């Protein structure tokens, strides 16, 4: 009896790794002739996944605190646009700071409305998503803003350290910082306690409003970094960058073993969850599926992830 239940917990905790391995093997066999295993393709997966990984790390904190952030796609788009505009008109540093400022402003608003006004986060961020995308479209009149600054494009996009892609470094850094914060700091414990049982956390003297504010802020700031990564990789700022990424990020987090109901978070799992999402995207493209079919498969994976993450 005990053995059985232990086994169950174990499988759930390591599910993401088994799934990752299984799908990797599957693609390696089926898509071998399409060049799936070529090192260039594998690096591409990492590169394309960087934005999702970074956002998913922020999302892990939000979901661990039993909230959700649907605005990250819009924030990334707006940050890419504002970053590109400031870069064009004022310079490199202003461009980067401008992009990050979007994250701070939207994150503070989200945090204020969720933690202090008490509006459910999915409503606040759903609304904010529209505001951010609309704003990005408005200031650019739907046009892409090209980025001609090579330094910016190198830092946030195509740059490498030796053979090591810069985008991969961004992913690793985000995962490492996220992992330390969640598992090694008091803040991480506060997030998990708040998400696990807000009443009990309050009794423990944890300022749960403050915790909720901070996770919403972190998520937005991290999404604005992802926006800059889009801008650097694609050498343009565009309101559409990041569209739909909130679903990929949520899927990555839940696939990674973080409880959708709050109280438990796994950053390393999130990392592999994001890679799995990237892997699937890559595989579907190599297999020659049209965008419509890719969307169907991705949607089904999210539902499957939640079903598997559901307890008991």
């Amino acid at each position, binding site marked *: 009896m005990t053995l059985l239940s232990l086994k169950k917990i174990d499988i759930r905790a390591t599910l993401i790794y088994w799934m990752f391995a299984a799908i990797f093997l599957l693609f390696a066999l089926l898509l071998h002739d399409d060049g799936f295993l070529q090192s260039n393709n594998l690096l591409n997966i990492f590169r394309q996944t960087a934005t999702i990984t970074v956002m998913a790390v922020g999302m892990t904190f939000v979901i661990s605190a039993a909230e959700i952030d649907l605005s990250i796609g819009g924030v990334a788009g707006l940050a890419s646009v504002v970053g590109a505009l400031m870069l064009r008109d004022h310079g490199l540093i202003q461009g980067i700071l401008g992009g990050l400022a979007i994250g701070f402003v939207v994150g503070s608003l989200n945090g204020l409305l969720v933690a202090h006004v008490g509006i459910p986060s999915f409503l606040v961020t759903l609304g904010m998503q529209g505001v951010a995308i609309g704003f990005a479209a408005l200031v650019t009149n739907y046009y892409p803003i090209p980025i001609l600054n090579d330094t910016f494009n190198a830092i946030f996009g195509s740059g490498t350290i030796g053979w090591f892609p810069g985008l991969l470094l961004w992913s690793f850094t985000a995962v490492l910082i996220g992992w330390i914060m969640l598992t*090694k*700091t*008091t*803040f991480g*414990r*506060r997030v*998990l*306690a708040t998400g*696990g*049982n807000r*009443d*009990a*956390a*309050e*009794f*423990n*003297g*944890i*300022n749960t409003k403050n915790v909720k504010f901070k996770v919403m802020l972190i998520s937005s700031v991290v999404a604005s970094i992802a926006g800059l990564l889009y801008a650097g990789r694609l050498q343009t700022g565009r309101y559409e960058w990041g569209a739909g990424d909130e679903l990929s990020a949520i899927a990555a987090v839940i696939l990674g073993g973080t*409880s959708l109901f709050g*109280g*438990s978070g796994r950053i390393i799992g999130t990392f592999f969850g994001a890679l799995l999402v990237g892997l699937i995207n890559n595989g579907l493209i190599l297999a020659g599926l049209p965008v419509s079919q890719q969307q169907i498969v991705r949607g089904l994976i999210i539902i499957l992830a939640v079903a598997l993450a559901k307890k008991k």
Partner: protein
Amino acid sequence: MSSNFNVVEMIDISKSFFGVKVLDRVSFEVTSGEIHALAGENGAGKSTLMKILQGVYTLDSGEIQIAGAAASIHSFQDARNYGIGMVFQEFSLVPELSVAQNIFLDREHKNKLRFFDEKETIRKSKLVMEELGLNIDVTAKVSTLGRAFQQLTEIAKAIAGDAKILILDEPTASLAKEEVDALFKVLKQLTARGVSIVYISHRMDEIYRICDRITILRDGKKIAVSLLSEISPQEIIAHITGRKDVEMLSHEGKSIERSTTPIFEAIGIQVGNRVNNVSFKLYPGEILGLAGLMGSGRTELVRAIFGLDKKDGGSVKIDGKDVVIKNPREAIAQGFAFIPEDRRRQGLVMEHSVKQNILAANLSSLSHLNFLSFSKINNLVQDSITNFEVRPPEANREVRLLSGGNQQKVVIAKWMATNPKIVLMDEPTVGVDIGTKVEIMKLVRAIATEGKSVILISSELPELLGVCDRILVIRKGQIAEELDRKDVRDEDHLQMIVQGIKI
């Protein structure tokens, strides 16, 4: 009375949970038009017996007869079909629907087109209210009504569903005096129509005022049944309490040095109309008990002290100095710890491990520059598990997998690790087995021996008598009596005082 027949007859009912007998051949009967009190301490078996009648639990052995015929009740639906209605303590009304819609919830009147017939619903609801002699606007939303009217709506709902037997569990716990009067008037009206009522209450004055007979349970056995006109409050209390564990009661209270500065002083605390101008002092090493009935304002008082609820007036002093406590963080910083009433909802994160739960209350002492110190954490958690004898002694076990008693030990352990000066405890032994109960009581004594002060709320009087040095009796939000432990003879004596019965 002689023409009255038994509406409900429960014969030799036995029920065990996990091998523990909670009801042992209990018989209980209610005649038509009678208000029958069901009394006993927490855990005596009252609610289990009533849950069997409602179909929540199935009896192990025994028989239920409704109106003279054998009845088999296996679900709530069954109970309803037999005319058994329950007025829930936590109301089963939908707040956003109107009174009328609630009364006919699930039995809506439909017109020819199969749509809800609002007019008919309102008309029928008005009839029910008229019958009950109640003046409630049936089109009003339930959420806009006061608690008493919500409760009356609940009763109207049961009556409209043709209930012949109503079960009321502590119905007056959160009602004001006029509201109680209104409720009792309705109950009398119902009995005149032949409805029978089972009335569960700890309040002796109400039982005498409204009930015809009383059945007393103790430790899962029926101890007595009597007409209230033939039994004295003293006899009832003696039946309810029985002979208690002598060892537990032998405590006489320490002599506390009360000429020094009190460690804590409350001056004129006011919380809405629930806590009214409460002042008291607490001395180092003292265990102060708060006795009182459910809804008397004890929990509200300690919640306000701990900064969970806003105080509407009054001030507090610690070590003779004025302090302001607006939230639990400030209370903890002043050296408070709070072991709450509901450990599942307020005390613990059930899905987290023993270690994580202990850690969550001690983040600042177990970290350096906000980074957790895992060697300190492991030492503390190991010490806690050993000192508080948490079973099984596994730091990484999720607390939801522990027994109630061991969960409570984790709550106490995590707070003791904060090294508090003043420990607030609200019903620390609820839902805990008897062995652990004794352990927890010993822990409370040990805490005070270390020089810490304790404020203990308990509805179990033997517990208060077993550990307290002084007892404050709270009634209607005010301190009604202050008693030195040595001035209380026994449990019956304290029970009389709590009930406000003059001796």
